C-alpha cells in the first residue's frame, strides 16, 4: 500500500473516531432545526388567559376594546370599582385607565396592575388596540372616511419586478444575494475550520516528537500532503453529513409537527365585542380583511419570488462550482496552514503567521456587503479572479451570473497557484518540522522558500 495512502487513512480514521467530530456533526443540524422550530413552538404555546378592566373617562374607548381568545376586556365603570375588582376578583389581572381629556385627543393612558405585572402579550395587545381605536375615531369623526375606503386604501399592493430588458427574465436579486452570501460564507468556514485542523495536526506531531520517527519512513512532503488530504476528506464528510442530517431533521420536524404548523399558520379568530359601536365594528372587520389580504399577498409574493428565484438559479453549475472552490480553496490554504504549524511550537506563536495568511479571505468576506451593491463591478471581478480571494468572491458572484471566461480564468489561476503554494509550503515544512525551541521569523520563511 502506498505510504501516502496510509497517512491519509490514519488522519481520516483518528479524526472520524473523535467524539468532537460527531458532536460538531450533530450540533449544526440540531441548531438549524432549533432555529426553525422554536418560533413555531413559541407561537403555538397556549398563552394564559388574562382579564383586563377598561376604565375610560375620555369617552372614546369604552366599549371599543375587542376581547379574544387570550384576553377578555370588561367595562369597569369607575376607577374605584375597578380597583376593588382587581383586588378581589381573580379574573381581573389589570386595569386600562384613560383619564378625562384636557385636549381634543387623549395624550396618556395607564395600565395598572397589582403585584404581578401583566405579560408582554397583554401589554402589547392593549397598546395596539388603544392606537387602533383612536385612529378609527379620527378617521371617521374628523375625516369622514368610510370603512370601505379604508379597506381599499390598505389593500393596495404593487409588485416591483427587476428584469433584464433583453430577455424579459426576472433578476431575483434578493434571493441571489442570499444564496451568494451563504455559499461564500460556507467556503470561508471550510477553509478556516479545516485549515486550522491541519495546522494543529502538524503542531501535534511536532510537539509530541513523533515526526522524526515518521519522516524516516515517509518523505516530509508525503506526510504533509497525507494530512492535508485526510483532513480535506473529513471536511467533505462533515459537509455531506450536515446536509443529509439537516434534511432529515427538517423533514422529521415537518412530519411530526404538521399539526403545529397548521395552528401557527391559521390566525386566531377575533371575537368582536357586541357592545362596540357599529361603525367601529365595521371598520375593524374591514381592517382585518385588509390585513389578511395584505398578509396573504405578501406571503404569496415573497414565496413566489423565492420559488421562482431558486428555479432561476442554475443549481447544477452552482454545485459544481461550489465543490471546485471548496476543494481547491481548501487545498490552497491547507498546505500553507501546515507550513505555519511546522514553524511554531504552540498555538499562540502561530498567530503572527495565520493572521496575514487568512487576511485575503477575511477581507473578501468583509467586502461582501459592499460588493452586494455591485456584484459585477471591476473590484468584484478582480477579487473573483485572484486566487487567494476567488474561492469566497466567485461563489458569491455565481448566482448573479458570471461570464464563462471569468469562471474558467479564475479556476485556472487557482489550479496553477495551488501546486505553487504547496511546493513553497513543503519547503518551509521540511526545514522547520525538526527545529525546536527557535522562533521562526518571516525572513527565515522567505529564505526557506527561496533557497
Amino acid at each position: 500500500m502506498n505510504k501516502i495512502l496510509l497517512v491519509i487513512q490514519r488522519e481520516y480514521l483518528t479524526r472520524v473516531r473523535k467524539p468532537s467530530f460527531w458532536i460538531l456533526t450533530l450540533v449544526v443540524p440540531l441548531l438549524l432545526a432549533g432555529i426553525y422550530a422554536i418560533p413555531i413552538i413559541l407561537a403555538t404555546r397556549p398563552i394564559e388567559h388574562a382579564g383586563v378592566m377598561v376604565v375610560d373617562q375620555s369617552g372614546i374607548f369604552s366599549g371599543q376594546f375587542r376581547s379574544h381568545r387570550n384576553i377578555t376586556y370588561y367595562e369597569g365603570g369607575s376607577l374605584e370599582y375597578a380597583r376593588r375588582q382587581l383586588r378581589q376578583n381573580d379574573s381581573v389581572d389589570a386595569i386600562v385607565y384613560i383619564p378625562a381629556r384636557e385636549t381634543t385627543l387623549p395624550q396618556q393612558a395607564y395600565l395598572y396592575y397589582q403585584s404581578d405585572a401583566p405579560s408582554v402579550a397583554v401589554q402589547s395587545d392593549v397598546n395596539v388596540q388603544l392606537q387602533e381605536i383612536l385612529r378609527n375615531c379620527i378617521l371617521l369623526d374628523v375625516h369622514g372616511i368610510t370603512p370601505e375606503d379604508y379597506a381599499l386604501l390598505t389593500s393596495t399592493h404593487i409588485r416591483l419586478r427587476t428584469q433584464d430588458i433583453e430577455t424579459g427574465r426576472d433578476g431575483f436579486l434578493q434571493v441571489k444575494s442570499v444564496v451568494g452570501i451563504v455559499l461564500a460564507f460556507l467556503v470561508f468556514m471550510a477553509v478556516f475550520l479545516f485549515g486550522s485542523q491541519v495546522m494543529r495536526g502538524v503542531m501535534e506531531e511536532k510537539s509530541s516528537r513523533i515526526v522524526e520517527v515518521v519522516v524516516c519512513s515517509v518523505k516530509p512532503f508525503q506526510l504533509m500532503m497525507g494530512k492535508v488530504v485526510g483532513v480535506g476528506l473529513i471536511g467533505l464528510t462533515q459537509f455531506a453529513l450536515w446536509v443529509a442530517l439537516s434534511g432529515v431533521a427538517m423533514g422529521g420536524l415537518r412530519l411530526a409537527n404538521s399539526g403545529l404548523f397548521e395552528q401557527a399558520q391559521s390566525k386566531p379568530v377575533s371575537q368582536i365585542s357586541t357592545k362596540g359601536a357599529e361603525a367601529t365594528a365595521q371598520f375593524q372587520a374591514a381592517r382585518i380583511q385588509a390585513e389578511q389580504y395584505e398578509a396573504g399577498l405578501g406571503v404569496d409574493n415573497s414565496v413566489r419570488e423565492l420559488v421562482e428565484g431558486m428555479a432561476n438559479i442554475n443549481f447544477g453549475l452552482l454545485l459544481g462550482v461550489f465543490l471546485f472552490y471548496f476543494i481547491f480553496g481548501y487545498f490552497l490554504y491547507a498546505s500553507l496552514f501546515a507550513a505555519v504549524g511546522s514553524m511554531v511550537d504552540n498555538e499562540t506563536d502561530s498567530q503572527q503567521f495565520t493572521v496575514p495568511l487568512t487576511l485575503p479571505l477575511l477581507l473578501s468576506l468583509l467586502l461582501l456587503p459592499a460588493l452586494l451593491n455591485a456584484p459585477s463591478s471591476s473590484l468584484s471581478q478582480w477579487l473573483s479572479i485572484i486566487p487567494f480571494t476567488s474561492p469566497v468572491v466567485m461563489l458569491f458572484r455565481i448566482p448573479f451570473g458570471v461570464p464563462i471566461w471569468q469562471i474558467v480564468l479564475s479556476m485556472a489561476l487557482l489550479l496553477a497557484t495551488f501546486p505553487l503554494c504547496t511546493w513553497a509550503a513543503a519547503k518551509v515544512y521540511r526545514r522547520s518540522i525538526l527545529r525546536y525551541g527557535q522562533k521562526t521569523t518571516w525572513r527565515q520563511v522567505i529564505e526557506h522558500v527561496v533557497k
Partner: protein
Amino acid sequence: MLQISHITKNFGSYCALNDVSLQVRRGSVFGLLGPNGAGKTTLIRIINHIIAPDSGTLLFDGHPMTDADVATIGYLPEERGLYKKMRVGEQAIYLARLKGLDKAEAERRLHQWFDRLEISSWWNRRVEELSKGMQQKVQFVVTVLHQPQLLIFDEPFSGFDPVNADLLKREILRLKSLGATIIFSTHNMSSAQELCDDIALIDQSRVVLSGSLSHIRSQHPGLDLDRIFINTVTRHE
C-alpha cells in the same frame, strides 16, 4: 556496511560537521561519542536522509545510499515520541506499515514482542495513559519490528530509567548476535565501553578519535574511556 566519506554540513555560518569520515563494519556495534552539540545528531540525520550534507558521500554496502536503503534502517531518534491520543497497538501497526510491513505480519510480530516484554496488556491503551518508561519500550519495539539490518539509536539511554536502560543493552547485544549492525550515539562512556566494538569521538564538528575499542584502549594503557575522552577533548581544545 556503511562508509561515510568527507561529510561537511553547515547551518548558515555555523559548521555542524567538518570533513567527517567513518567506517561502520557489518555486524558490529558502533559507538558515536562526543559532548552535546558536537554534531552526532546531525550526522545521524544525514545517514537517515532527513537532511542533506553540503558535501561528502555515503556508501551503503558499497553503493551510494538510496531512499530505499534508508527505509530499511531502524531509527530511534533522540527527539522521540508517539501520537498521544492513539492506542498503542494501532499506532505500532501504523508505524510498522509505514516501514513496509503488511498489516497481518506487523500484528503477528508485535504480539510476539509484546508477549516477550510482558506488555501485551497495553495493546488497547492510549499512549497518553502510559508512563514515560512504558512509552520507551513501545518505541523500541516499533524501531526494531521490521528486523532492520542497520539500527541507529540516538542517545538511547538518555531518559531511560535504569531498568529499561539495562533491558535496552541486553536487546542491543541480542540483535547484534542475530546479525544486525548497530550505531548508537551517547555521552555515557560506561555503556559505550560495555557494548561497542568500534567507536568514534566527535568534538566540535570533527572526528578526533576513531577505531576499534580494543585498539584505542591499548594506546591509552591504564585509562578508562571516560579519561581518554576528557584528555582527547581538552587536548583538542
